[in-house]
């Protein structure tokens, strides 16, 4: 078996890519910190997540080299995100949809205190 195949198969990424990525990541970190000092109400989470996703994209594509990688590595990694999303979506569909049919089933109560009987004056909850 040929042990030494010196074919030039390793693509060497120019250092400026790495430096630019580092600087972008640091700038994005500063942005997300600064933005967090202001309150955008319901938009706080989406904004923070958007910045995090951009940062993650940079790390994955440049530092981890997925940009220059074989197709299957990409499919595998994107696949993991798809399945994670399925997990999130389906388990959340349960939690989010619970109140709609029997509103009482979405009520959390404290089990440390004895179960409060609902009977007295209990109305129908549909």
């Amino acid at each position, binding site marked *: 078996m040929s042990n030494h195949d010196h074919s030039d*198969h390793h693509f060497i990424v120019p250092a400026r890519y790495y430096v630019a990525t580092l600087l972008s990541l640091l700038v994005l*970190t500063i942005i997300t910190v600064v933005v967090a000092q202001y309150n955008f109400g319901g938009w*706080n989470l989406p904004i923070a997540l958007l910045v995090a996703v951009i940062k993650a994209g940079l790390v994955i594509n440049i530092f*981890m080299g997925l940009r220059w990688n*074989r197709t299957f590595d990409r499919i595998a990694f994107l696949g993991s995100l798809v399945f994670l999303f399925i997990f999130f979506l389906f388990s959340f569909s349960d*939690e989010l949809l619970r109140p709609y049919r029997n509103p009482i089933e979405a009520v959390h109560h404290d089990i440390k205190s004895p179960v409060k009987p609902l009977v007295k004056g209990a109305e129908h909850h549909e």
Partner: protein
Amino acid sequence: MKITEPHKEHIVAHHFANSKHEFDSARLGMWIFLVTEVLFFGALFVAYAFLRWSYPEIFVEAHHILSWKMGALNTAILIFSSFTMVMAIRSAQLNQRLKTSLYLITTMICAFGFLVVKFFEYSAKIHHGYLPAKYFVAHGASEYLHLFFGLYFTMTGLHGIHVLVGIGLIIWLLLRNRKGHFYSNYYTPLEMVGLYWHFVDLVWIFLFPLFYLVG
């Protein structure tokens, strides 16, 4: 370290055709391992989402307790260490053994720095009793705040364990690089540990805003 000493020729394992075959296989294996890691941490993020949905108020309260400055510092440290990691690999690709070692050492110092900051954060929380339910003794906290800290310690703790493992792997790389194992045609372990280390960075990129910034 004597950098004049020639590198050691890598011998391709008997079941691979050539070193490219070996490298590609190893990298595919590593990516698939990272896939499992995505699901591993991802499940915790799903748990996070559930708690956030059920008890939004504890996240507001907790975000005043955590120090975003410490978190931001750690973010910068990890990002920088990711940078030094790719530079270490790049140096190996260019047969610059000394530089490889220097970059690896910088990465390791960053990793230790991260853990030191974490140590101070943890001790402050422990001191004030912000702990998971069984040990939660903080005063004036809302009823379910312990849930936040249960999750906080689980997620950052698991991430911290990954950092520790990373440090071990970097030490191993340093030892091997000293023996001259890595050169332009063979740097597979560097690449693998690099991918792992970037993943650790990636997890922190999400942990930081979700725990420290968004209240």
